[in-house]
């Protein structure tokens, strides 16, 4: 027998979830089947899918490699100005993605380090490298936040015990801490990948949104919407929804409750 309180909360959750489903699902009804297939197998869409997946995988790997030591540092070590480090790393989550895009464009472009990088023939704007950088900066703060919580859940006494048994700090990290954090690490990787795939504003500014050059799925959606090609725009949107759904579903299936 459910209480009135329980019913009320279940109803609120159900109504809003169904609303989400209708809003997102509505997109699937807009294009015709022929229009969808044509857009899906167009050269532009295939390029966008390839570019999105390749840059996102590279960005996600870089984010995970950087966020493991950073999240562990913030979780375990005390040092001066740690509070300031945490605010700086959380900051991009609080302001619009477009701000990161403009900031990165200024930093990497003609107002920033572009002049010096130019000497070495390196260009980090309006190309695939720029997309990776944009995705990295957008996804990193979220990844650090998630993994920081994971490391906080891993009782540091496991590490104490391991070290008392003769293992060094680094051996303990790889033998004990990381295996105990593997569920959180897996979830962080999936969310990071999804975040990289969905990055838009920062990628638009730093990548330049150039057709068939820096055109990721989200950029393809934007460009085609601007030119009135609704089938292409919606197909890109549907692909983003499907990719996100699969990644989240994989995470839900494999990430059980933390046992530490």
């Amino acid at each position: 027998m459910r209480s009135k309180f329980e019913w009320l909360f279940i109803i609120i959750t159900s109504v809003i979830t169904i609303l989400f489903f209708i809003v997102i699902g509505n997109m699937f009804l807009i294009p015709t089947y022929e229009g969808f297939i044509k857009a899906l197998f167009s050269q532009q869409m295939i390029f966008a899918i390839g570019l999105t997946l390749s840059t996102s995988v590279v960005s996600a790997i870089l984010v995970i490699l950087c966020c493991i030591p950073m999240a562990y540092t913030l979780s375990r070590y005390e040092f001066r100005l740690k509070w300031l480090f945490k605010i700086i790393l959380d900051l991009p989550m609080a302001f619009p993605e477009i701000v990161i895009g403009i900031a990165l464009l200024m930093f990497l472009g003609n107002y920033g380090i572009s002049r010096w990088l130019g000497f070495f023939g390196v260009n980090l704007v309006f190309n695939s490298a720029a997309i990776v950088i944009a995705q990295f900066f957008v996804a990193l703060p979220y990844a650090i936040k998630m993994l920081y919580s994971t490391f906080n859940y891993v009782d540091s006494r496991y590490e104490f015990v391991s070290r008392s048994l003769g293992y060094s700090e680094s051996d303990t990290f790889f033998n004990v801490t990381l295996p105990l954090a593997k569920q959180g690490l897996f979830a962080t990787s999936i969310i990071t990948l999804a975040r990289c795939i969905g990055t838009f504003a920062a990628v638009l500014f730093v990548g330049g949104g150039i057709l068939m050059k820096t055109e990721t799925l989200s950029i393809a959606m934007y460009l085609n919407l601007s030119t009135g090609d609704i089938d292409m725009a919606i197909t890109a949107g549907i692909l983003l929804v499907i990719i996100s759904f699969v990644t989240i579903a994989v995470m839900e299936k494999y990430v059980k409750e933390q046992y530490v």
Partner: protein
Amino acid sequence: MFLEIKDLCVDLGQFKLENINLSIEKGEYLILIGPTGSGKSVLLETIIGFYKENSGEILLNGEKINNILPENRHIGIVYQDHVLFPNMNVYENIIYGLKRNKELSEQEMDEKVKEIAKILEIDHILTRDVTTLSGGESQRTALARSLIVEPDLVLMDEPFSALDVSTQNKLISIIKKIGKEKNTTFLHVTHNFNDIWNLADKVGVMKNGSLHQIGSVFNVFSKPANDFVADFVGIQNVFEGKIKKNNQNHLVNVNINDNITLVSSDVEVCSHLEDYTNVLVTIRPENIIFSNESMNSSAKNILKGTVIDVTYSGPIMGITVDVDGIVFKGLLTRSSFQSLDIQVDKDIYIIIKSLNVHIMDRYSSFKLEKS
């Protein structure tokens, strides 16, 4: 000394360990007791190297280990909640510490695991997932994991507090056996006085980050260094009084009030005190003898009072007697209680030997006793 801690201070911001001094001989079993938040666990984790001391020295086997990394100190630790690695089974937990020893073959490691598992009676659960173990099985596994690498010193943080009495007793006898056979040195923190009676060679009493007293079990329980120790170790007869030395008899008289004077043989404690200095007097309840008649005996303290309360605790009776406004608490067996026909409001004599009247200097409440 095997383990020696000198003037150890640790500042963790909201909590401090202050001027800890203690020592343990090889093979000795030291138990630290104290209320929650007294710093017992912090002290263990400082000894093992997880907290950095602000000052003071930790010497193990004569070697200063302050700057040695925890992995090189050869000190094992066993926690109250076992802290078994949940991603490993029992066997993998136990063998974990051996695996970094490249000199041992797989077979030698396997033999060692089976040997320690047999001693701790967990050889039948080696393949079990640690999340399915009972409290006793978990604690035996944690002990096996710690002992298998043969540490120089084993630190135990309330190891039995989550276990039932029968499991506690089994583990106590196993630890006693291992300690004796391998001459292992233990430093154990607990709230449970039974651990002290069963295991300790020495006892330390901590409060608010300070070690108030350390010494043999007998000394700490019979001669507490201050009122906190007296209260914590359960001495229920603690009185304030003024001393008057009687140098001829090598005794000290303590005036508790106008009518009651207790005679103590703690002359040494009072040697630096002037007559009429305020002191505290402690008498353990079990050191009070009850009689229906005044008797001619060697005991220097014979007081007449009235029974005001009787409490029952299994075979032991607690008797509370009022002597001219001062309340004394003593213990009796049920058979003695019956043979004396003790009842509330009945007059009774209490008899205390001067040896059992202990004096504490009231105004030097922090006194470190080395014994």
